[in-house]
């Protein structure tokens, strides 16, 4: 297993490289002058000084050279200073990542905790009202626009009904992470962002469970006289989980990518909102770093998914 993990990590390197190349190229396409953006409010700089600054930043070098130099800095975790805040970008990113992770990880847990039982339920009660209800809920939940759902949540459940907080991580004055207050504030963003996953999971799971239930070895287990519950949960789930883990890929994309809108709607100080505000302010170093780090998170999640895949499916041994 250790070798599998190591190999998987190595396989991720060309992908990460690709991400860096793409991000670099896209931002360099910008018509805006980075020196102008960087100097922002400084009005006493002469044209000669600007040229000197361009030179020192290497902006007059050929593009590949600029890329190599940027890459060299990035490897040392140096993404430069924010054009807008004039603080080291890496510091700002580091402050926000844990906040975003709280939502993503909670969302993943909730999706599995709610989606799996629903899927099994739908399979067991196949053809009945419960099954139909769950399937209707599935498809609708998958089609709902996340940002709109989040808006309705905040406006109706938060402002009008006051059932939930309207955003932020804690009530003012509280600063705890693993406490009821934080959990209370997480409900909104997590519920909204997981709705897509919670909706999709039962559909996949239902199909798989149905297939597995009709398999011979399950009938054998039943005839051997094992209790109904034990049969289902032990044998069926193990096999049905395989496509579920595959689903994680899509879920993670939604969680990390959806974080942008959700953090905006719920006033959550995370990576997504930081990147969005940076884009509004034309703060290129911060946007670059935001994209690179969100991609990094995604790549790492895919690796974790593949490892889970290997654990769950005994047939997929270390290739």
């Amino acid at each position, binding site marked *: 297993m250790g070798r599998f993990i190591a190999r998987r990590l190595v396989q991720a390197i*060309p*992908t990460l490289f*690709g*991400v860096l190349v*793409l*991000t670099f190229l*896209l*931002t360099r*396409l*910008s*018509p805006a002058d980075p020196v102008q953006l960087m100097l922002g409010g400084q009005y006493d700089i002469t044209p000669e000084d600007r040229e000197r600054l361009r030179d020192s930043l290497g902006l007059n070098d050929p593009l590949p050279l600029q890329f190599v130099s940027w890459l060299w800095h990035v490897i040392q975790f140096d993404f430069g200073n924010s054009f807008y805040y004039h603080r080291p970008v890496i510091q700002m990113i580091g402050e926000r990542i844990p906040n975003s992770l709280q939502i993503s990880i909670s969302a993943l847990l909730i999706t599995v905790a709610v989606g799996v039982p629903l899927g099994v339920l739908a399979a067991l009660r196949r053809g009945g009202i419960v099954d139909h209800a769950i399937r209707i809920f599935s*498809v*609708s939940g*998958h*089609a*709902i*626009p*996340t*940002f*709109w*759902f989040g*808006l*309705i949540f*905040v*406006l109706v459940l938060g*402002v009008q009904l006051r059932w939930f907080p309207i955003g932020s991580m804690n009530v003012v004055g509280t600063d705890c992470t693993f406490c009821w207050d934080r959990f209370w504030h997480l409900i909104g963003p997590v519920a909204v962002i997981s709705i*897509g996953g919670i909706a999709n999971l039962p*559909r*996949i799971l239902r*199909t*798989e469970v149905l297939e597995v239930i009709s398999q011979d070895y399950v009938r054998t287990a039943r005839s051997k006289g094992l209790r109904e519950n034990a049969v289902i949960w032990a044998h069926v789930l193990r096999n049905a989980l395989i*496509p579920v883990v*595959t*689903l*994680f*890929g*899509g*879920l993670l*994309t*939604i969680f*990390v*990518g*959806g*974080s*942008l*809108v959700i953090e*905006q709607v719920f006033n959550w100080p995370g990576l*997504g909102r930081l*990147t*969005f505000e940076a*884009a*509004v302010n034309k703060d*290129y170093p911060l*946007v670059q770093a*935001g*994209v690179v780090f*969100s*991609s990094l998170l*995604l790549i790492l999640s*895919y690796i974790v998914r593949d490892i889970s895949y290997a654990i769950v499916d005994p047939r997929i041994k270390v290739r």
Partner: protein
Amino acid sequence: MATDATTVAPAAAQPAEIRRATAGLWSDALWRLRRDPTTIAALVVLVTMVTLALGADVLADNFFKWSFSKQDILSSYEKPSLSEPAMWLGSDQLGRSQVVRLLYGARVSLFIGTFGAATSMLIGIVLGVTAGYFRGWWDDLVVWLVTTLNSIPTLFLLLIVGLLFRLAPLPLAIFLGALGWLGIANLARGQTISLREREYVLAARTIGATPFRVMSRHIFPNILPLMIILAMTDVGGLILTESALSYLGFGIQPPVPSWGNMLTGATQFLSKGPWLVYAPGVMIWITVLCLYLVGDGLRDALDPRLRGVGGTGGNRKK
């Protein structure tokens, strides 16, 4: 749905099935489709919406007598009423007709969804099939490209683009399509790899058919049904992405209405005009829902065994 019909009542269906064994993929699918009320209903809704959207100009001029940009600020925030067609869904903060804007919004969203999906199909099929067929360094390059793009959350990538340009609907559609071909390419590639070892393909290759001929004559038609299903669900995903982007202010710019940008200031309207917040969101929801239902229905109709394929995970980027 179709699955129940075939597994619950096998005895009655069997003779018909056997008779149809030689009738070809499409008529087979149509037969199954006709027994699927959900999908038919969704299809009807979609067709209605497309018709209305296409006829937006005609409707606006003759029936509603109000253009999408026409303002009447003295009657802003009017509640929905039956007094005149243009006011069926009320008016917004500038007195524009909500129902007319929703219609035009449908046009923009459906256009971007369809055109984007078409672009995705084009890029995806070309890259996927060639990668699967030729293997070697080209395959490696395509796989690397797919994995890389798959690792950047779509909205983040679009943010960078939004930094640089404010795109009109057509370039936006192409751009979104250029980011959405991953699922199609993956599937195309996988299918091509397995197909190229089949007897009839090997036969064609031995007699010296050019790769292009092999790909277009033997491989492409076989993967097309699958691709179409995938593309349908992609349209839904694209509409969701475009709405989110326009909501954030980086997509379609006002006054051109898109369901997403109609919601941009929406948070501020909830007290003054709740109908302004619910209508566009519900429209997006229904449209995407119908697209997914039709996609699922088609997939089930074409081949129930395909049930685990295509509709899952990675393509639905919000």
